[in-house]
């Protein structure tokens, strides 16, 4: 279209430094200051002085397992529980810790051995449950962290804490911090994309989990959904074709140009660029979400589920496609791990949905040469109790929330692959030291045996080249960080 090229040339030609290109970059989380008037600036090194260190990873895929997967049935082999199945959790193990009001009032808290078989895998000899055969195959690419612990005992505060570093609402999440700190490397997709497995039910997710809090709302996660309009309002209205839309945008651009000549407010130029970016997204988002061009081998790897939009497998595949296009942070959520009762029946359903695709993502990134600079994280907001919530029977048990220890894994950029970090006591109740003795870690003091949520956050940031103590934003008069005033990088997790 002729009109377009004239307008765009006109527009992009305005600034010697290439206003348009810069402004486009700014649309999604570029780290330039956002106040009007500062938009027109020569392209300078990152204003925040980032990265602080040479990054080991450039991008992240976080496979968040919402609800709290049972470490005891997946990752943390505890034969003693099977041996003492049905006996009461000894008081010395619990040591007066608070329980939730769900099982805390039970008259009996019987230990529940896992119903699933465990076996060692990989050079680390990591014990994994039979529920995770595919994860077992990538064991040598993975660093398992068995000594995670957190502070919250209910889902909402716990997941908010994990994602934003605070149980208090209104703080930016990890993805927003990365968007703010590192900006975007992608001109036509958001820096921070959120994918949620469709129709999973169970514990809710909230807009605040991918919210930018007090950071500029440009840094909030953009939710991609399955279906006709992968981003809200992305599709043209029925009856408007893309050429018609192009024509409207050209006119709009010209109108705004006239308005700029009248008002001279640079914010207007930013608005012009923003409409262009929207148009580009209308092209790029359907392109990235359309997996029809993927060969059959892809679906063999991720599983047939990956053909069904909205499944965890489809989202893992989509995550890979987004990573290929340089999206900075892809946050997946998979709900359904909150097995207070009926765990033996429910947890295989979950692993069937997640095991293959999680492993496929790692494998796929690796074979494409992307794993070295992509960090993959897998885990939930807390673990589960070694005792049964509700009745323990021969074929059934449930597990309550347990913040004192749980397992996550990481793979890819900068991670010490093929290792296991940390351990728990024989009951899987407390984190243990090298000798297997229970310990009570304190977040204020670095403890090599334990990884606090803030420690994990600090380590993730470190892998991305960020000193978690130096990436902050001033709000309410104080410097806020993802890690609050805590967090220690865990060198043992890094290659």
């Amino acid at each position, binding site marked *: 279209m002729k009109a377009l090229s004239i307008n765009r040339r006109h527009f992009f030609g305005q600034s010697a430094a290439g206003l348009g290109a810069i402004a486009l970059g700014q649309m999604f989380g570029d780290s330039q200051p956002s106040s009007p008037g500062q938009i027109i600036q020569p392209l300078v090194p990152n204003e925040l002085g980032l990265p602080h260190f040479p990054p080991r990873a450039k991008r992240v895929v976080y496979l968040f397992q919402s609800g709290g997967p049972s470490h005891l049935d997946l990752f943390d082999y505890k034969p003693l529980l099977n041996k003492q199945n049905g006996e009461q959790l000894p008081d010395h193990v619990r040591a007066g810790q608070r329980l939730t009001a769900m099982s805390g*009032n039970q008259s009996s808290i019987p230990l529940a051995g896992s119903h699933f078989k465990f076996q060692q895998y990989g050079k680390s000899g990591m014990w994994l449950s039979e529920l995770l055969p595919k994860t077992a195959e990538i064991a040598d690419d993975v660093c398992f962290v068995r000594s995670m612990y957190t502070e919250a005992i209910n889902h909402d505060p716990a997941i908010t804490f994990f994602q934003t570093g605070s149980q208090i609402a209104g703080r930016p999440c990890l993805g927003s911090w990365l968007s703010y700190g590192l900006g975007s490397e992608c001109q036509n997709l958001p820096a921070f994309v959120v994918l949620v497995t469709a129709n999973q039910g169970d514990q809710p997710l*909230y807009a605040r989990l991918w*919210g930018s809090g007090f950071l500029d709302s440009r840094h909030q996660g953009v939710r991609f959904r399955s279906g006709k309009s992968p981003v809200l309002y992305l599709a043209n209205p029925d009856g408007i074709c893309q050429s018609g839309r192009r024509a409207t945008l050209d006119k709009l651009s010209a109108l705004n140009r*006239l308005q700029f000549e009248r*008002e001279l407010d640079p914010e207007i130029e930013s608005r012009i660029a923003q409409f262009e970016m929207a148009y580009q997204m209308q092209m790029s988002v359907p392109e990235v979400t359309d997996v029809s061009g993927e060969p059959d081998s892809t679906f063999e790897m991720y599983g047939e589920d990956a053909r069904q939009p909205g499944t965890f497998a489809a989202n893992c595949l989509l995550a890979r496609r987004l990573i290929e296009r340089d999206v900075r942070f892809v946050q997946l959520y998979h709900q359904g791990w909150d097995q207070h009762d009926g765990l033996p029946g429910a947890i295989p359903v979950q692993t069937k949905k997640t095991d293959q695709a999680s492993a496929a993502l790692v494998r796929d990134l690796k074979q494409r040469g992307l794993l070295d600079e992509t960090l993959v994280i897998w885990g939930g907001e807390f673990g589960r109790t070694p005792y049964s919530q509700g009745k323990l029977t021969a074929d059934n048990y449930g597990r309550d929330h347990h913040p004192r220890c749980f397992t996550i894994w990481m793979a890819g950029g900068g991670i010490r692959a093929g290792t296991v970090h940390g351990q728990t006591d024989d009951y899987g109740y407390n984190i243990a030291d090298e000798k297997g003795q229970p310990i009570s870690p304190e977040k204020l003091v670095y403890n090599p045996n334990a990884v606090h949520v803030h420690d994990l956050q600090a380590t993730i940031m470190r892998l991305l080249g960020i000193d978690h103590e130096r990436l902050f934003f001033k709000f309410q008069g104080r410097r806020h960080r993802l890690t609050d005033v805590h967090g220690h990088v865990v060198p043992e997790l890094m290659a």
Partner: protein
Amino acid sequence: MDVFVNRHERKAGRKVGRNKRSAVTANDAKRVSVDAVTALRLLRPTLATLAFLSLFAIIAPLYAQTASIKVDFQREILPILSDRCFLCHGPDEGTRQADMRLDLRNDLLDHVEANSPDDSEIWIRISSNDELERMPPPESNLSLTDIEKELIRQWIEEGANWSRHWSLEPLPKTVEIPEVVDSKWPANPIDRFVLAKLESMEQTPTQVAPRWRWLRRVTFDLTGLPPTPDEIGAFENDLSPEAFETVVARLLSSPRFGEQMAISWFDAARYADSYGYQSDLLSPTWPWRDWVIRAINENLSYDQFLTWQLAGDLLPDATTDQILATTFNRLHRMTNEGGSIELEWHTEYVADRVNTFGTSILGMTFECARCHDHKFDAITHQDYYNLFAFFNNIDEWGMYNDSSRVPTPSLLLPNDEQQRSMSAARMELERAKSAVDDYRASMSSITSVPAEAMNSELQIAPIAAFDFESLVDNKWLTNEICADQPGETGPANILVPGKTGNGIKLTGDDDVSIGKVENGLNPWERFAVSMWVWIPEDLNDVVLLHHTGGTDVGVFGTNLTLFEGKFRFSMSRFWPGNALAIESNRAAKKGKWTHIVIANEATGSADGLQLYVDSVSENHILRDYLTKRPDTGGNGFTLGARFRSAGFKNGIIDELKVFDRPLSAVEVRVLTGTAASDVESRISPSDRAQHALLVDKKYNELAATRAAACKSLLDAQTDILEVSVMREMDQVQVAWVLARGNYDSPRTDSNRAHRIAPSALPPFGDETSNNRLSLARWLTGSEHPLTSRVAVNRLWSNFFDSGLVATMNDFGVQGHRPTHPELLDWLARDFIDSGWDVKRFCKQLVLSSTYRQDSVAQAEAWKTDPKNEMLARGPSRRLSSEMIRDLALSAAGLLNDTPGGPPVSPYQPDNLWQEDNSMTPAYQQSVGTDLYRRSIYTVWKRTAPIPNMLLFDSAGREVCSMSRTATNTPLQALVLLNDPQFVEAARVMAENEIKLRSDDTETSIRSMFMQLTGREPGDQELSLLVEHYKEQLVWFGENPADAEKILAIGQNPVQAGLAKPSIAALTVVAQAILGCDASIWKR
């Protein structure tokens, strides 16, 4: 030189603190606003880096004049000390290093030798080259720039003057209005302050804005809506000197005024229509929203506006509105997540009240002091909990249960019809009560107890009875009265020797269902339940018997529990504030058989409840306020266990009997087997009278009538709208200073909190019997340093690019200084002197020359003063999310301006509410004209806000927010172009035009442009739009199916008889106009 003597000690002190110190980056220094005046004054070639030079090249002309002024401690030194030093040498005792603080005058000046920097420890430390000496220490990641050091040096050289932080200084009684050179420009005192500053910088104001522009600006600012073409025309034609005032008067009296002005208060008050956490169910808080709008429209003075919200319930003879206003303090989020701990969440809610109070009214970051002394401001940990003590004294529970049960305390808001039925039911109950009382009086002469009562056999038959002698099929329990209504026990409970024969021993996890006995143990039912219990030594808090619904976290229904070792019998709609409850006077006996009777006479109040422990009546009333039916649902009543409650573990129950009326004390003694030892003469007269009544036929008829009246009243009240409010408890609840803010930290006499004013602020006049009302009166006193300053700043920000203090939530030392401190004080003083008159404030502001300036500025001005802090031009800002949607609806003539009522649910893609949350109700999109209500009435769900508003930077309303950002993102472009809400509005605009003007396209386009932007299009604009129309018309003419499709968007029916390709083409043109800066910006 003690400075050097102490050096080692100090170093040691620093080391200790290293682990704790929050580290930040050096380049932060750049981000802390260096006051340009200061920077310029200090500019010397030796200091200036290239970057600074280029910065100064821009700002130099602005500030050239000020280069010779002395350093201002308040504005220039204190911010540096606060930002770089207070973390370790500030108010927080917990992290203070080397016992040195720089936030207090004397302590600071101890380290300064006036006029002599080189003898001042502060200068020595900050200028030292020795890493071990230098402050701030390297590991803090903080540093001082050369300019900042130089400033401090100059301040010392100039004599090291000191003053208090500006916002804590008392508000001056009068503020002098400055003289200006150009005396013609100012229209009122505001302008004199603004102009004086501009003149001091050799700046001039921008020319006055075109009339249309002022009209559009003021109409949006005061009503949130665009001016209509008629209003524009009328104003353009009104050349009278009063034309501007006429418009302002019209806008201020519009009901739309309150709707617009309420929005920033709703953000501050975290008003929303849902509870927030986890399943985030809807909460009925909208009556408060409507009250706010009404109060603003009626111009309730701001001091009253605050007083009602903080303490309306404590005002003498409080009106419904005054009580409703207190919902302000109940708008915090609440959880109903299973497993939550009541005290933990209760603490969160009170903390949220303190935070919101501190931010929205005092403009201070009180929440920092929840865990420790404030790091920067003079707010102590104790101060925080002293405020906490004002807000923790209501009869509340740390969780809610579901949308139908309103957390207490609460207020009923009946409509007229409900009010009538309620009054009628009340009168009926009063009559029924009198009838009983009269009859009782007539029976008072009875002195003998019928002989049969002395028998060991009861004369009243139970309606259900269980002796727990045997189990059928391992689970069924025989009901001796109704064989077809057996009880049922979980298999783990076992029969053991009981009081008589066998009893049932409980696991605490397995319940015993008594099945569907006729009587549901409801508050309007007369009943008695008698049983023997054997309580093990270790039980103090367990459920013995209950009839409750699917409670997970909240407790409602009928309960007999052991609470802190005493028996407690309650019937509640929402525990504890909407309940009847009594408690035994003495602790329950352990390891022995105890006989328990609970009984209800169904009087509608707690005096109808009875509890007999081993035949002794023990009726200490705990709660006596029940307004609604418990509505338990569920399966009758149950023994020994409840979902997620502690059960009667290893306890034994025996000989359970249920009766359909209360028992007399005499009858209870029959049940306990002690009646046999009674002799006529030992029965007290009152027991005698009671027994005579309870066995009397007429009395029972009258009592049944009273019970029915009691039910009628509960029925009449149950459907009435109810909203959570504040209601002070009789006995003041103690608050404690919670270590690290944790709910479960120790509570002892030594860490009690007290209801007194924060220590950095003036004390209350009268320190006796302080409550929320004293707090409100203190706040609204005419000398209070913060209330009026914070209020006028927030009001100001509704009209200009930001507040005079840009950090609207932080008037503390880390916040921005006011750009116009004298103006802020003058406005605050004038506001108070005018009787806290908000409308007057707004009027004065919009008629000022400052506000009337054009917002057009030369490119240079956008660079030198991007935020328009100097006010050298008129305000400009993107329209708010509410305004953008309302603009589109209004221009289309779709806007439904019905005020108030329950929230409505406009277009939203699919069912976003349940997409990530299967525990929440589905989104029920409104139908008909409710789709087009003003945006302020759109339902606000905290965990899933309506996306097209969130994308335009609406506040999330999870917590208090004092300002919104105004971003520009591509997602906003997608909303404007593709959201059915906006497509439909464009289509209806097009239809209206075509209907009105047929094919006079140019006029139609002019008209649409006028409606959306408030002005005529320029020639080029018009020709672009006409050209677009023509292209589109060709397209839709050739593709009529596409025209059909776009016309089908939205629920508003297409007007018949119009050419569809024309509508479609004009729709697209309307969309283009809507997407223009001219539409969605206020300039």
